[in-house]
Each structure stands twice: as C-alpha cells, then as structure tokens.
C-alpha cells in the first residue's frame, strides 16, 4: 500500500519567517505533486515535480524532489498571511505509465500570524 506522510500536520508561523514542510512517500515513482487548499474551497495545483532533483519556485514557495530519498520538500520563505492554507503533497503509484491514481498526504495546515 502506497503511503504518503507529511510533517508537520500543523504549522503556525510568524510573518517573515522561513519553514519547510516535508513529504515522505513509499512509491518508486519519479513524480510528486503539491496542492493548496483554502478553507471551504477546493484544491489548486501548485507544483508538478517530474524527475529526481526537480525544483520549482513560485513566489515565496519552492518545492523540490529527491526520488532516491523518496522525499519532497515545500519551503516557505519570508511567510506572509496570504500563504495561510492547507498544503497537500500527492504521489502516484510505482510503475509510472499513465496511471495517475494519486495518493494524498493528510495535509499540512499552515497558519501565518502577524
């Protein structure tokens, strides 16, 4: 059974600080996805990481993928209140191909305080 584990599950940060969310997964796939969910809303795609060593950045968020360690990180730089949301990572099963049946982590609830 594919496992995707995020930590921490709850993160309270001060504005201006840096922090990292970790995503460990058990598949041998070389893909990993990050999503954001605002309260009461649906999920929005943030990053698609398609190979070992992939790094993507958007504003104050940067995601990376280490397939050998089966680890992805989402780094937050100089947090602002607008980043408050729940962040999910998701991994496909081993074997690649066209099987897009993702397993999601439980999500990290990020609260950025002034």
């Amino acid at each position, binding site marked *: 059974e594919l496992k995707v584990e995020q930590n921490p599950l709850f993160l309270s940060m001060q504005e201006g600080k840096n922090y990292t969310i970790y995503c460990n997964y058990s598949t041998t796939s070389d893909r990993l*996805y990050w999503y954001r969910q605002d309260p009461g809303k649906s999920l929005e795609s943030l990053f*698609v990481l*398609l190979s070992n060593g992939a790094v993507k950045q958007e504003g104050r968020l940067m995601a990376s993928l280490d397939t050998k360690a089966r680890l992805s990180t989402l780094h937050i730089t100089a947090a602002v209140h607008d980043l408050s949301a729940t962040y999910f990572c998701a991994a496909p099963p081993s074997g690649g191909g066209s099987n*897009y049946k993702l397993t999601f982590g439980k999500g990290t609830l990020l609260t950025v305080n002034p």
Partner: protein
Amino acid sequence: DVKVTQSSRYLVKRTGEKVFLECVQDMDHENMFWYRQDPGLGLRLIYFSYDVKMKEKGDIPEGYSVSREKKERFSLILESASTNQTSMYLCASASQVGELFFGEGSRLTVL
C-alpha cells in the same frame, strides 16, 4: 484554463435517496476521478475512469457507482444515500503529466 465543473455545490438529501453528482471537464482529459474529503481522513479516492465507459475502483468504492458515457462527463452515484456519506466530494481530471485539476466540490449532507 482547465475548467472542471461540478453540478451542485451544496446538497441535502435524506437517507435512502438516490444521489447524482455530475462533473464536466473541458480539456479533453482521459482520466477523471472522484474523491471524498473528510476531516482527519484527508482525500480518499472513490473511483476513477481512464476512458469512456471504463472505470476502476479506488480505495473506498463501497456504496458508490460511477458513469462515464462521454469523455467530458463523469458522474458519481449514491444508490441509497446513508448518513456516513455526508462529505465533501471532489471531482478532478488529469493532464498528460498527471496534474489534477479539481472542481469546486460538492458538499453533501445526508439526513
């Protein structure tokens, strides 16, 4: 922009009623999915479809069925709704790199 549209944002049904949740995507994606999201349990895959008339069970298919008669439309059916099916239901379609695009969600309450 990819658009995934779910037919109902909020529904209230009674136990035993048949419930249809419809989802339409406009990007010609082959793969479509139905998830449910519950506090503390995260997102769980109910069913997915990789082509018209093709479907596969996800992790929690019991009590649900699906229909995909056209490529753009994927419907989730609760034959006889029960209170434990009260949840947020999320439909998604996948791009060729596996990126999921989600609809706005359908919040179902079963009384």
